[in-house]
Structure formats: structure tokens, C-alpha cells
């Protein structure tokens, strides 16, 4: 029987080893799988390479993962978000490596990784510092740089609805990186607000087909990052 459901957050993040590459969904706080990130902190693995569009806010979620010294390197497009207090300190002190990637190139590299495309050419960042040292090639008289697909050992993403096959629906702009990260990770773990029976999701509406998902844990009332931040919460 195909059943992607796992009983606990602990089970959802089990098997992540030190040094693993982990994609974490979310754009700013929307779609950020806060509960899964906290479970990852509890789980204890370290020296992680994280792929996330931002670096987290306050002292919870993504920021707490850094503040608990679990992150060796982060691949991101926009580390300098509001309330980002942890990352700048770690960066200044040389305690975290940073690979900065334009957001669309980051998205396309993740999508390529998931689609079995090892590398592609893109016009983004040509002639800028982020294009420096990269292979440049002209097509039809216009310059492009070569970028490589990214894959990960795990992806942690947040969705709204799932069935036991792992077919996923998302919540508004919380969708952001979830679907492409699900494609690019060996083991994709999703937290969902609701679990429905097979057949309740219209096959025309599925956003992420279950084939891209390995584990789904139900978190009926996920707490939004901003709520924790208002509370001044520090994790753990």
C-alpha cells in the first residue's frame, strides 16, 4: 500500500544525517514549514547545507536552525530580510558560508535538478558579479551563463492539503518553492494542515503529484513565523 503519511514530526525528519543538503520551502514567512524546521533542530543533525530563499527572522524557524549551529552553508537569493538578526551575525563572524543566487536562477536550478537537467544557460546575471567566473556562451548573438541543477537529500515543505499518495495543494503565495523543491529532493517531507481521502482532491487541481513526495505529516494548526516573533519566541 502506498501511504506517505507519517505519525509525527519526528518521523518526518528521521534519517537526516550530518552534512546533508536540505531544501526548505518558503518565501519570507509564507510557506515556511516552521514545525518541520523545529523538528529538524530537535533531531540534531548538523553541518547542513541549506537551500532556502531567505535566512529566517527572529529566533525561530530557519533563523533558529542557524542559531543552533546546524548550518554550514546556505544557498539563498535574499538573506537580508526584515527581522533577520541571526544570519547577519553568523555571516559577519564567518560562521556560515553563503552562496548567493538570483531568485529565478535558484528556482530554475532547483527545477532542473528535479527534472534531470544537469545544466542550462540563462541570461540572468550576465555581466554582474554573480555571473563572474561562470561559463559565458552566446546564442543568437545574446550572452548567457551556464548554471547547474541542484538536488538535495531532503526537502521540507509546507502545504495545505494532502492525501495518502502525497498529492499536494498549497495555500496562496505559500506555494512558492514547495513544488519545485519536492521534485529535487531524494526524500521530500511535507507538513500539511489537512489530510483527505484519496479521490477528494480533483485530479485536475493537484499541484504537486504524489510521486514527488515521500512523507506527509499532518500539522492541523501550523503557527506562522510572525506569531512566534511577536511573542519573542526563541527556539528551542
Amino acid at each position, binding site marked *: *500500500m*502506498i*501511504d506517505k503519511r507519517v505519525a509525527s514530526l519526528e518521523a518526518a525528519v528521521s534519517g537526516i544525517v550530518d552534512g546533508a543538503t536540505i531544501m526548505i520551502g518558503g518565501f519570507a514567512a509564507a510557506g515556511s514549514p516552521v514545525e518541520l524546521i523545529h523538528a529538524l533542530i530537535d533531531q540534531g543533525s548538523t553541518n547542513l547545507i541549506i537551500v532556502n530563499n531567505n535566512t529566517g527572522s527572529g529566533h525561530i524557524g530557519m533563523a533558529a536552525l542557524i542559531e543552533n549551529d546546524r548550518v554550514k552553508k546556505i544557498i539563498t537569493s535574499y538573506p537580508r530580510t526584515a527581522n533577520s538578526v541571526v544570519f547577519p551575525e553568523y555571516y559577519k563572524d564567518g560562521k556560515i558560508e553563503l552562496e548567493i543566487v538570483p531568485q529565478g536562477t535558484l528556482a530554475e536550478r532547483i*527545477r532542473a*535538478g*528535479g*527534472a*534531470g*537537467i544537469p545544466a542550462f544557460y540563462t541570461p540572468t546575471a550576465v555581466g554582474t558579479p554573480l555571473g563572474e567566473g561562470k561559463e559565458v556562451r552566446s546564442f543568437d548573438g545574446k550572452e548567457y551563463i551556464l548554471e547547474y541543477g541542484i538536488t538535495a537529500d531532503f526537502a521540507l515543505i509546507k502545504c495545505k492539503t494532502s*492525501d*495518502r*499518495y502525497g*498529492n499536494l495543494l498549497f495555500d496562496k503565495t505559500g506555494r512558492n518553492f514547495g513544488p519545485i523543491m519536492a*521534485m529535487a529532493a531524494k526524500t521530500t517531507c511535507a507538513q500539511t494542515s489537512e489530510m483527505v*481521502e*484519496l*479521490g477528494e*482532491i480533483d*485530479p*485536475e487541481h*493537484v499541484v504537486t*503529484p*504524489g*510521486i*514527488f513526495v515521500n512523507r506527509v505529516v499532518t500539522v492541523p494548526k501550523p503557527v506562522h513565523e510572525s506569531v512566534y516573533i511577536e511573542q519573542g519566541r526563541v527556539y528551542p
Partner: protein
Amino acid sequence: MKNQDETIGWSRTEMAWRAAQDIPDSTYVNLGVGMPVMVAQYIPKDREVIYHTENGLLGMGPVPPKESIDLELINAGNEPVTALPGSCYFHQGDSFAMIRGGHIDICVLGAMQVAENGDLANWSTGVPGTVPSVGGAMDLVAGVKRIFVITQHCTKFKEPKLLQECSYPLTGKKVVSRVYTDLAVIDVIDKGFKLVELAPGITFDYVQSKTGATIHQ
């Protein structure tokens, strides 16, 4: 020993049944046109397998009765099918991302020729003037984790299909994992073909005599 035409060894349905036994529970499977499609009928009932059809459906079900055929719901072989609970539709970019990205566990395909290094030829005889048609075959063999071939051991002209090298144009290099024929189940391993199982009443020597390359025992 009887001639192959006199139906020694496994019948087509037995070949499909035999291949089906090797499809594990909880796998995503793509079945090629023809005999491969028959495999779905023989999956043990306690296993749940999800079928992918590369024209854009995951969770494909069996052919419907005539009165409930939907012309916009077909498989890659252009046959009417059904969509089971938990299925989903997607476009060709996403469908082949599943294939190329290594998300499909097993693909069962027919073959014209299989070489002892796993090379597969199943899309063209290379005869000039014929219309070449490849469809998704090259993507499937390049991307799916394990490629099973199901085929008669010899052509209708009694020539071996399992060879040292393919003479027909390739579909993919070093892609086949296992071959199911009317005579035997044969793996492709580093050193070449290896016998897994003989069909009832078939001897190893007979299989070897019908094969264009060494079979390791």
C-alpha cells in the same frame, strides 16, 4: 524439443504474469505499448502500484467499458483508460520531468534487440524510407530507475533478439536491467547476460542456443 512456434515456454500472458511478480509494492511504474501493458493485470492483489502514462496522467486505471469511454482520457498508446482515485493530470513538461528526473521506479518496454551490455533497440529498424517514430522511449530509458524488457526470445524469423551488440539504431545505451522472454528471465549484469529463471520445460542449453551472446549461469 519443440519448436518455438509450438508455444513452448511461457505464453504472452505468463510472461506478463512473471514480470508482474517483480514489480514491488508502492512503486511508480510506466508500461509501454503492447505486451508491457498486460503486466498491470497480474500484479499481486496485495501490492499497490501507481501507473504513469507519459501523455500526462499518474494513477492510470484500466480500459473502461465502451459506454464510459472519454476521448480526452487516453494513455500513451492512444487507448481509452480511466483515472483512479488519487490520480492527477499534468502537462508534458512535468510528465517528462518525472521521467528524466528519475522519479519513476520501473518501466517495462518491448524490444527489437537487447545487447549484453544493456543497450536497447526498440524504436526503429533503421530501414531507409520507413517513418522513424520515437515517442517517449528514449526519455524513459534515460530516466527511469529500472528498465525491464518483455519480449519474445527470438524474432518471428527465429533470429535472436538478445545479442552481443544491437544492429538496429539504439534507444539507449546500457539501460536494460532485466529481460522477460518466453524462455527465461535474464538479468543484465556487469559481465553480460545472467540467467535468473527458466520457463517450465526449457533447458539452459536451449535458451543459450537461441541467444546471440553468452548467458552466465
